[in-house]
Structures are given as structure tokens and as C-alpha cells.
């Protein structure tokens, strides 16, 4: 058995080598291969490392350097929680690394791909180091390195002004978040007198409740910014689409999960939320999660940029994860351990699932971009025939993320729903009703998410191609398919055999629960009176589905005889000339939803008509309709705050009048003011 330390070192070294070789072998033969195969190998090591920690309980606790004066250093501690997130990182980066081998060809000749390779490796490495850091300083350093490298990835195509703008939004927002995290840690430092997480673990439970509340609020805002909770989410739909697709896959699938990691540390590691004092933390998490998920889903439905839609869907999924987390805290605060475990498992399962299918979907979107050079869904269509494998894999992702059986999304959403349904066991009826209403948001989210992904898949892959972008699209290289295939398989495996995920989570988080012991067992939940509350055996469902399908095929074949197919044009009401302009577009697909939620979207249609003659308004030459929606948060929240700040600053900066007289006057006034103050003070 290899020790965790060796594995850890090997992982770090391999990623670093990947980064270095990317720079050193710039433009050489095989450089691309090495740049991405090294991190793929490192990811394997990371996966083994996490398995080692989770199942062999070989936790790693080392202190690397320590500043004698300020007592901070780079401590490393890999426990189950870290290991779970290492697994996430390892799994996704394995797939994405393989995918990148092919994907970076998109940039060859146009951009310096060595920088991309370098940043890619450092980015993964920094995420890995974030989740193993065991001291405030190390955590913050790696956290910001992670932000920084991802920022550079976002502006990798900096020639386009829009990317710079989204990069700026991203870096500013993430820095804001980091500041809140820093503040939270500083408050803990004040109370515990140490920068080490070990000390936090030891002493945070003893600090006063009010202070703990402050710590939590600060940490929640800080991590929430990174996770993309509403209304701190505005960077996410800008940044993720701007980055190269392999980077957006990593950002969406893993990076925002580091925020979840941080929250878990604060909630369950530094504190042990076991008294009703913490209930409102859970309510905060739950309600934020509910709002986040609905709003993310709503935006995802109406979006027509495929990567932006995926980014909004990430916001939605973070909301679902937070819902589970919040429930877990609520249950834990009432000492309903079994339910707390259920909700935590649900939340973590969804974290794992989202990592899997979101990386798959972003890789799929990247493949489309690779083949068609556009992110605009309105310009796609008909790709299912040009890129059969990509479309199949993308469909798997879409089914998973829509929470449909037998894929993994269904399992975690099922678990989350079950936790929501278990609120009847909380001894507080106000809370029960509140949570019941929160579940409304959850269900709406599920419905909207399905609509969003029907749209994304349907509009981009199905029917006719809508522009010349898709004319010459061909299937992407094999490495890109392998990358997606890995995650698609994982999505299926986690969907059919939830045993894998649940066992992983329970051992990682070291929680006792009666969970399936063999891969084919059912998940069973008991209600308060001990009878079966709910149970689920996805494997059986798959078997049933398959047999029903086989049986029905047999029946139809027996009754109907052999099939004779005639291929003909789509029915055009006899007019003829049905073309791609008459198809439903992404915008028209989402029009009903846009209209129903018009209070939120504020849709505006501007129609410009041109007539052959003004006298006859029936004979129109052209009609051009533009449908726009408004971003409520940017307009109502960010713009006013920013402009108020700028207004204030504009007044302040005017003290620099350019007149030396006024400068001298300031000095005189300062001096006299201070002297008078001293004179007047006793």
C-alpha cells in the first residue's frame, strides 16, 4: 500500500511538471500531449490518494513551513472531506485533461497554447491545494492563486473586449468574496489566537454564539460569491463562457465546489451544528439555495448562448446543493441525525453529480464550439447528424442534469426531495411550512432545468442547421470524445449504482448510516413510525425499463409485423419550401416562459417594420423583431451601488485641484485642526 504522502507528492509533482513542460516545450512536437497527459496521470494519483484517505483512512497531516513570528504556515491536512473534494478534482481533471489534448488544437496557430497548458495545470493544482490547506494563510494563498489562474483562463482570448470585461467582473467579485473569507478567518483568529485550522477545530466550538454567527455570515458571503449564489452570481455567467471550454468545465464543475468545501469546513468541521441556535444558519442556506436555484434555472431557460446557459445552470445546481446543505444543518440543529445525514448525502451526492455532468456538458459545448466556432445556439442545429457521438454524450449530460432516471442527477434530486419531504419530523410547525414552500422552489427548478436542457439539446443538435457555421461541422477528435465518455460513464454509473456514491460520501464524511451494502441494494428510508418512507433501486428500474422496452418491442413486432419506412420531407401544410428560418429558435422556444415570468425578465420586444409603400401597411418588406430581457440584479443592485460609489469618489478626488494654494491650505487646516483638538481636549 502506497502511503498518502507519496501519492500526494506524486500528484503535486506531476501537475507542476505538466505546467513547467507546457512552458518549456513550447511549440515542440508532443508538447501538447505531455502537457495534458501529465495532469491526467496526476489526476489518477489524486483519485488513488482520495480513495486511500477515504477507504483506508490514511489521513495525511503535515506542516511544511511555519513562520516563527506570526504563527502561520503552509499546513496540509487531508481528511475525508478533503479527500472527497480531491476525488472530485481528480475525476473531472482526468476527463478534462484527456479532452484538452484535442481541444487545444482549436487555438493552435492563433494563440500561444503553452500558456493555456501552463495555466490549466496550475489551476488544477491550486484547487487541489485549496482543499488540502490546513491554515488560513495557505488556504487564502491557494484560493487566490486559483482565482488568479482562472481569471487568466477567462481572459485567455483577451483580444476580444467582451472577455476582458467578463474577466474583470470575475476577478473583482471573487476578490470581494475572498475578502469576506479573510474577514471571517480573521474573526476566528481573534477568538482562537491562531491561524491554524487545527486550532479552529479545537476552539471554534467554544467561541460565543454571536461571534460564530458573524463568522458564518462572513464565510457564507465569501464562499457564496465563489459558488455563485444569487445575488452574488453575476460574474459566473460572464466568466464561464469566456474561458476556453476545458477551463470552463473545470471552473463550473470543480472550482465553484471549492466554495462548498469551504462552507462544509465552517459548518461541520469548525462547528458542530447540533443545537437549535444554528437553525437559522440552515434556513439561510436553504432559502438562499432555493432562490439561487430558481433564478439560475430561469436564466438558463431563456439564454441562447450555450455556455452562458450552462453557466446559469451551474448557479441553479449550486442552489440545489445549498438546499441540501441547509436542510442538513436544520436537521442537525434539531438533533435529527439520520435526516441530517440524508440531507448531507443528498447535497454531496449532487456536488459529485454536478461535477460529473457539468464537466461533460461544458466539454460538449466546447466540442460544438470546436466544430462550429460559435456559442450561439441560434446558429446551430442539425448537429446530431454531423457529430453523432458528441450529441449522444451531450444527451447523457442533459438527461443527467435534468434529473431523469436512470442517470445520476435523478438520484441526488431524489435524495434532496426526500429530505425536503422529511421536514414533518422537525418539531416546529413554522419551520415545516417554510420548508414546504422552499420545496416549491425546488420543484420549479427541476421543471425549468428540464425545459432549459430540452432547449439546449434540441435547438443545438436537432432539426436543420440554422447557419453556415454548422455546414462544415464534423465529429471532434477521439481524445475529446474519450474525455466526455469518461464523465458520461461516471454519470451512468452513479445513476444506476448509487451505492458507489453513497458509500463514498458516508465514509468520506465519516457518518454512520444504514446505507446499501451491495451495489444492487435499494436505498431505503424509514419514516418516524419505522415503516418504509421511500425506497429506490435504480438498478431494478433499469432492468425493468429494459425488459418493458424489449417486451413492447416484441408486442409491436408481433401485432404490427415488420416496419416499412418511407423517408419524405417534413410536413409543410402543402406549401412547400419549409426551411430553417421557419424552425423554432432558442428564443422562441423560451418565449412562453419568458412571458409567464415577465415580472422577472422584463422582456421587451422591439419590432421594426419596413413597408414597400407607406400607404399600404400590409405589404411588408421586412420585419425585424428583437427580443431583449433585462438583468434585474445588475440593473437594480450592482449599477446603483457602483454608480453611487463612483459619484462619491468623484467628489473626493476633486480635492486634487491642481492649485498649490489649496494644497497648502489643506496642510494648514489639518495642522490647525489637530492643534485645536489637542488644545480643547482635557
Amino acid at each position, binding site marked *: 500500500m502506497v502511503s498518502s504522502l507519496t501519492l500526494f507528492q506524486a500528484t503535486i509533482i506531476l501537475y507542476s511538471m505538466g505546467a513547467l513542460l507546457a512552458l518549456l516545450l513550447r511549440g515542440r512536437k508532443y508538447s501538447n500531449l505531455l502537457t495534458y497527459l501529465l495532469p491526467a496521470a496526476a489526476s489518477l494519483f489524486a483519485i488513488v490518494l482520495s480513495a486511500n484517505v477515504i477507504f483506508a483512512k490514511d489521513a495525511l497531516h503535515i506542516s511544511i513551513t511555519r513562520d516563527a513570528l506570526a504563527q502561520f504556515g503552509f499546513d496540509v491536512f487531508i481528511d475525508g472531506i478533503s479527500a472527497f473534494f480531491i476525488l472530485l478534482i481528480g475525476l473531472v481533471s482526468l476527463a478534462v485533461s484527456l479532452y484538452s489534448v484535442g481541444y487545444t488544437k482549436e487555438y493552435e496557430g492563433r494563440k500561444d497554447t503553452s500558456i493555456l497548458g501552463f495555466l490549466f495545470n496550475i489551476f488544477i493544482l491550486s484547487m487541489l491545494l485549496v482543499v488540502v490547506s490546513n491554515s488560513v494563510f495557505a488556504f487564502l494563498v491557494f484560493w487566490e492563486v486559483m482565482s488568479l489562474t482562472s481569471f487568466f483562463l477567462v481572459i485567455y482570448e483577451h483580444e476580444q473586449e467582451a472577455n476582458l470585461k467578463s474577466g474583470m467582473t470575475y476577478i473583482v467579485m471573487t476578490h470581494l468574496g475572498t475578502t469576506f473569507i479573510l474577514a471571517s478567518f480573521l474573526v476566528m483568529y481573534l477568538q482562537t489566537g491562531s491561524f491554524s485550522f487545527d486550532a479552529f477545530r479545537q476552539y471554534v466550538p467554544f467561541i460565543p454564539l454571536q461571534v460564530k454567527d458573524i463568522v458564518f455570515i462572513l464565510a457564507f458571503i465569501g464562499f457564496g460569491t465563489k459558488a455563485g449564489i444569487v445575488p452574488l452570481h453575476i460574474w459566473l455567467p460572464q466568466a464561464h463562457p469566456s474561458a476556453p471550454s476545458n477551463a470552463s468545465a473545470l471552473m463550473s464543475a470543480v472550482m465553484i465546489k471549492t466554495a462548498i468545501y469551504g462552507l462544509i469546513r465552517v459548518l461541520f468541521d469548525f462547528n458542530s451544528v447540533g443545537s437549535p441556535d444554528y437553525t437559522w444558519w440552515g434556513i439561510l442556506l436553504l432559502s438562499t439555495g432555493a432562490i439561487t436555484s430558481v433564478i439560475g434555472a430561469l436564466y438558463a431557460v431563456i439564454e441562447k448562448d450555450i455556455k452562458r446557459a450552462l453557466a446559469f445552470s451551474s448557479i441553479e445546481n449550486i442552489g440545489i446543493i445549498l438546499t441540501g446543505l441547509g436542510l442538513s444543518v436544520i436537521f442537525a440543529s434539531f438533533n435529527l441525525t439520520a435526516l441530517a445525514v440524508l440531507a448531507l448525502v443528498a447535497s454531496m451526492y449532487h456536488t459529485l453529480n454536478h461535477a460529473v455532468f457539468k464537466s461533460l456538458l461544458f466539454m460538449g459545448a466546447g466540442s460544438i464550439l470546436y466544430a462550429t466556432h460559435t456559442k450561439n445556439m441560434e446558429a446551430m442545429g442539425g448537429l446530431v447528424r454531423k457529430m453523432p457521438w458528441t450529441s449522444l454524450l451531450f444527451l447523457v449530460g442533459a438527461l443527467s442534469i*435534468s434529473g431523469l432516471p436512470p442517470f445520476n442527477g435523478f438520484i441526488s434530486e431524489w435524495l434532496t426531495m426526500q429530505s425536503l419531504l422529511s421536514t414533518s419530523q422537525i418539531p416546529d410547525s413554522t419551520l415545516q411550512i417554510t420548508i414546504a414552500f422552499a420545496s*416549491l422552489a425546488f420543484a420549479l427548478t427541476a421543471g425549468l432545468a428540464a425545459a432549459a436542457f430540452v432547449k439546449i439539446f*434540441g435547438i443545438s443538435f436537432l*432539426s436543420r442547421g440554422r447557419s453556415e457555421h454548422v455546414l462544415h461541422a464534423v465529429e471532434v477528435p477521439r481524445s475529446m470524445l474519450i474525455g466526455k465518455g469518461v464523465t458520461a460513464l461516471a454519470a451512468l454509473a452513479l445513476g444506476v449504482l448509487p451505492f458507489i456514491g453513497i458509500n463514498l460520501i458516508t465514509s468520506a464524511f465519516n457518518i454512520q448510516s444504514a446505507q446499501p451494502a451491495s451495489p444492487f441494494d435499494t436505498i431505503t428510508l424509514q419514516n418516524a413510525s419505522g415503516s418504509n418512507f421511500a425506497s429506490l433501486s435504480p438498478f431494478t428500474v433499469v432492468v425493468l425499463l429494459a425488459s418493458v422496452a424489449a417486451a413492447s418491442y416484441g408486442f409491436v413486432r408481433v*401485432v404490427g409485423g415488420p416496419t416499412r419506412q418511407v423517408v419524405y420531407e417534413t410536413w409543410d401544410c402543402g406549401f412547400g419550401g419549409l426551411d430553417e428560418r421557419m424552425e423554432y429558435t432558442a428564443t422562441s422556444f423560451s418565449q412562453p416562459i419568458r412571458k409567464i415570468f415577465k415580472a422577472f425578465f422584463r422582456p421587451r420586444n422591439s419590432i421594426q417594420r419596413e413597408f414597400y409603400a407607406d400607404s399600404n401597411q400590409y405589404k411588408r418588406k421586412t420585419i425585424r423583431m428583437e427580443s431583449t430581457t433585462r438583468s434585474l440584479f445588475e440593473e437594480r443592485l450592482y449599477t446603483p451601488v457602483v454608480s453611487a460609489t463612483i459619484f462619491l469618489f468623484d467628489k473626493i478626488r476633486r480635492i486634487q485641484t491642481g492649485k498649490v494654494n489649496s494644497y497648502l491650505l489643506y496642510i494648514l487646516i489639518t495642522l490647525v485642526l489637530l492643534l485645536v483638538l489637542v488644545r480643547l481636549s482635557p
Partner: protein
Amino acid sequence: MFEPSFATLAAGIIQTLVLIAFSPLLTGVMRKVKARSQKRIGASILQPYYDIVKLMRKDEVISDQTSWIFKSAPWINFAAVATAALFVPVMLAYSPFGLAGDVLLVIGLFSLARFFTVLSGLDSASAFGGLGSSREMMLSSLIEPALFLTIFTVSLTFGATNITTLVSSAAGLQQLVTPSLLFALISMFVIVIAETGRLPFDNPATHLELTMVHEAMVLEYSGKLLALIEWAQSIKHLTLLALMINIFFPWGVATSLSAAAVGEGLLVFAAKALAIGVIIAFIETRVAKWRLFRIPDLIAIAIASSMVGIVFFYI
């Protein structure tokens, strides 16, 4: 409760087969009732069976723009709906597959079916398909919360989402009509109508583009594929009715596996299903199809009703 055994398993499969087999009949009966109440003679109540068989034997016309999604969607649709039917008790108080899935799985399978149907609508590159798909997704995304809240109420009342537990608790309940269940029932009724695409949500008999939802999606289908879709629609309808019946009106459901009990259960179920079918048919003759953007109001009523049900439960 039931013990898993070969007999119960067989009984379970049989009750599902009954459901699948008789579902077109319900459609036929409803059409007949509708026709009669409109002073028409109407087709035979067995007409849906004739249609299905006829369609199965016909050639298929496939659009040249379609892909494998179009061809496989009816199969997936049918399989998913039929599988969902396996989990719903009909005349028995349990389904032997209750341990493999609960009511949420049933909803999940319906969603899976719908997902592919909607995709198939988009696949044909016709203007109608997109229209239907778009409206269908809009409706379903709104119905989802209503349905979930209804389940919430029910599961609060009976302490389960497992259908077997639900039905057995319902059958064993002393006071049958609690206020919360009543509200849940109202909600459930609206949902059943909406999910199965009946008036005032959707007119199953129309082919006018202004009013089509479900029909627009499946406009391109013919032959075997259309047969599967039609049948699946009927199965879905009856499955939902069965769910509603066995949760809200579980009288006479067979709790044991004796021939008498099962027979009685079947008859009672048939009576109840027919009654509800007739009620729906009557309603359909009374109302016109609502404007698409008024439909959310109706769904909002369902949601509100469930919410009130939840509040009543806790009070």
C-alpha cells in the same frame, strides 16, 4: 404490507398489464361520453384499440430531417410510461416494485418520457413541432411544483412517498377526508388534467396550430410510432388516475391476494376510474380551451390549493 414472493410479483405484473391493456378503453369511453353529451353518436368505445392496431400495421413516413432521436423517442416514451405503470397499484393495495421506486420515480419516468417526446417535436424541423415542444415544457415546468406540493401534502399525511405505504396507510385511515387531503385532491385533479393534456389545458382532438400542444409535437409521427405514442398517452392517463384513486379513494382496494379481494378490487377500481373518466369528459364538454397564458392561473390554483393543504396539515 406485502411480502415479496413469486405470487405477489406475478400479481403486481398482472395488475400493470391490466392497466396497460385497459387504458385505451378509458380513452374510448371518455370520447363516447363526450360525443354523447354533445349530441353526437361518437365512435365505438373500442375505437382506440382499432386505431392502435391499425396504426401498427401501417407504413411509417419519416421526415428526412430527423435523427435517431425521432425514431427512438416513442419507444423510450412508451417504455418509460409503461415502467412507471409498474409502480402504481391498481386493484391491489401495493405494487411489488414499491421497493424499487416510489412516487417520485413515477414522476421521474414520466419526465423522461416527456423529455424525449419534446425532443422529437424539435427534431422534425417543422414549425409545429417546436411550438408544441415549447408549450409542453412551459406547462410541465409549472406543473412540476404543483405536483410536488401535492405529493408533499400526501406524504405528510401518510408519512411516505413509497406508493405501497401510501396506499396501505390511506386504506387504513379512519377519517378519510382530512382538509389537507381535500385540498391535495383538488390540486391533483388539475394536475391529472394538465399532465394528460385534456381541456382546458390542451385539446386532444384538435389540429389547429393555435391550440395544439401535445398534438403539435407528435404531428410528424405515423404508423407504429404514432401507435406507441397514443397508447403511452392512454397509459399515462390511467396511471395517474390510478394513483389518484388509490391515494384519495382507496375504498375496496385489495389488501390481500385472495381471488375475491382482487376481483372486488378490480371491479371497484374500474368503477372509480370510469366515474372519474366520465367526470373529466363532462368537464371537457363544458369548458373551452383556455388561452395558453391563462393556463398558469389554473396551475397557480393547484399550487395554492396544495399549499393550503400543507398549512392545514400543520394546524
